[in-house]
């Protein structure tokens, strides 16, 4: 483990200025998303504290009000947050404190007691853009919105929802970290969060297909695009196109062996959704709707989501609600698809082909905010010969530390890595050599942890292990 020297000055983090270079460039380029008012940019000439108050009133919903009202400040949440556990002497890491930075504004703007006797409940409006910038650093920089504190809150207060609520309002004011703005811009402009053009997308698919045909010696192996009437439409993470085509190749190989009829869509293929992280429900709805409409257009019988935590949560659960789109098709993780293949004998796997000790990291967005805990384990126990749990696990697992878009916010990286000590200790205790997860975001987050804390582990996805254990038919 790394020594104490990595300790971050939290006052510096909380006073990081608002960077607007990318916003000015986007406005200068007259990007369509800016022109339409989808992507909001910061305007210092506006009465931003006043606009903040208006947005609070407009965006509140019943469950948020309940969470904003119900906290009794018992402090139990501090025992469940990896930020608070890693910095026990820093009270600003307590989840209730972070939520209170939003709550105090809510109480002054909307709350009963806060409007009558503000001092009694520390109610305070944001007075300046500086206050809003500080709030930006709290809600984007000191919380990974993992929801672990909610699971351990006797009242069931949704601190992560409060954090996301504030993020969404700040996004409407353009008071966001530059990375959040950039990724949101790419997703609004190109339909995917890495700005992959259609040409790059199609060329990468062709390239993966050729590589796969050469590797397997099977010229019939295919990555079909925009084929109508397939059993399922496969949605992926842009990272699979841009940085890690191996996972796309693994999927194609497995689908081929299973005799699956599937397709990728030409548009609406990105299952990731930065709206979840930025708190922008409009962006969330736009991205999710792209996928749902693509599946409808292609008359697919099902939507399958490649391995991605926030992508799964967004596409399977939140996206339908953000988009105001009633679910029509079964929507599942590819891990569930693989589970079905193994159960039905459509693919054969040999666990001895993955002999190293493997542990599994549950993505927060899948285990706590989604519904898949047993399924990946069911698969892993059949494709690895030495599977071992980390503790805690399942819906009590610790965040990879890169959740909620933190990987795109370089300015908060030192704090993220410092508090990753909790995750590093948890990983080290397993003695595993292979760290498996079913999330591209967690892959990057965990790789950072492994590297920073010098852990002797390789980070992989479920599909990597399944592909490694595949037994080709005679």
């Amino acid at each position, binding site marked *: 483990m790394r020594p104490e020297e990595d300790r971050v000055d939290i006052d510096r983090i909380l006073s990081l200025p608002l960077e607007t270079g990318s916003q000015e460039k986007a406005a200068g380029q007259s990007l369509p998303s800016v022109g339409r008012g989808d992507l909001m940019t910061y305007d210092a000439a506006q009465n931003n504290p006043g606009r903040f108050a208006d947005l609070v009133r407009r965006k509140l919903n019943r469950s948020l009000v309940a969470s904003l009202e119900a906290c009794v400040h018992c402090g139990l949440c501090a025992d469940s947050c990896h930020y608070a556990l890693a910095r026990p002497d820093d*009270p600003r890491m307590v989840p*209730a404190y972070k939520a209170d930075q939003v709550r105090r504004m809510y109480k002054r703007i909307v709350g009963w007691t806060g409007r009558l006797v503000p001092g009694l*409940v*520390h109610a305070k409006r944001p007075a300046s853009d500086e206050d809003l910038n500080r709030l930006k650093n709290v809600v984007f920089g000191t919380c990974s919105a993992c929801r672990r504190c909610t699971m351990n809150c006797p009242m069931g207060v949704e601190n992560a929802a409060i954090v996301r609520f504030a993020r969404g309002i700040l996004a409407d004011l353009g008071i966001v970290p530059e990375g959040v703005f950039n990724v949101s811009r790419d997703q609004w402009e190109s339909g995917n969060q890495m700005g992959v053009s259609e040409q790059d997308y199609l060329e990468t698919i062709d390239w993966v297909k050729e590589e796969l045909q050469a590797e397997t010696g099977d010229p019939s192996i295919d990555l079909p695009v925009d084929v109508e009437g397939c059993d399922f439409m496969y949605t992926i993470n842009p990272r699979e196109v841009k940085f890690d085509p191996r996972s796309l190749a693994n999927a194609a190989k497995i689908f081929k062996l299973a005799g699956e009829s599937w397709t990728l869509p030409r548009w609406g293929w990105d299952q990731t959704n930065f709206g979840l992280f930025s708190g922008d429900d409009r962006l969330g709805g736009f991205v999710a709707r792209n996928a749902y409409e693509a599946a409808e257009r292609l008359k697919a019988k099902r939507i399958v989501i490649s391995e991605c935590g926030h992508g799964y949560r967004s596409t399977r659960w939140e996206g339908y609600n953000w988009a105001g789109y009633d679910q029509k098709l079964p929507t599942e993780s590819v891990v569930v698809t693989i589970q079905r293949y193994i159960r039905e004998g459509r693919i054969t796997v040999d666990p001895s082909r993955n002999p190293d000790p493997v542990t599994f990291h549950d993505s927060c967005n899948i285990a706590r905010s989604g519904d898949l805990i047993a399924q990946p384990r069911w698969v892993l126990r059949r494709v690895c010969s030495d599977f071992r749990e980390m503790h805690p696990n399942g*819906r009590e697992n610790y965040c990879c530390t890169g959740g909620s878009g933190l990987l795109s916010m370089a300015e908060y990286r030192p704090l993220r890595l410092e508090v990753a000590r909790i995750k590093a200790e948890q990983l080290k205790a397993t003695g595993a050599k292979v760290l498996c997860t079913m999330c591209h975001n967690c892959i990057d987050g965990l790789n950072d942890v492994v590297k920073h804390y010098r852990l002797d582990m390789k980070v992989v996805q479920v599909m990597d292990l399944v592909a490694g254990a595949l037994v080709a038919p005679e």
Partner: protein
Amino acid sequence: MSPLLRVLQDEVQIVALSFLGIVYVLKLLWIFRFPHRTERTFAAGSARAGVQSSLMNVLMPWQMESTRSDPVFYVQFALFHAGVLAAIALSFIVPYAPGLLVGHGVRPVMLATLIAALMIGLGRLARRIRRPGLRLISTPDDYLSLVLTIVFFATAALLLAAPADWGEGPAIAFFALTALFLVYVPFSKVCHYLYYPFTRIFLGHTLGHRGVVARRARVDAEGI
């Protein structure tokens, strides 16, 4: 019984209780004015089972890491709230059913509960002052609510334990404080129990619907 005590334990309590009830009704109407999100996804589990599990969570300390790893805190929580119940019950028993305090061991049980709650309350106050994390998040209302509750326990215990020759002093103190409490509660954090069903139901509904708890077996076989 003096006219002061008679009015305090009857009319004043009824007025204070009515005030509390009216503010609660207004608060509930206010909460329901906020929009509620429509769920548009297929269920992977049972929202109803999730809600049931979430509401019963308070009785299942093993469900949460925070209470599982600190059972003493949970016991304190239970006794503290039992003290609240005992003190509230006392405010009804004394004027309307004083016979309940004679025999059956009711009085000593209530007294023991109130004294335990009083000690725990003092411990909680010390904890709130001592811990930097708790101190930072604590508002004047957090302290005032806790102190009022502690004094409420103390006066209730005194009312039960005081010898007859102390006169009406303990009863007057108890009922005066109860009335004050009833008026303050709706504006303080003490009314967290009004929000408790909301937060637990919303959380339980989500967890149940998504199958994080109460997952349907059919879902794994056929997909959703």
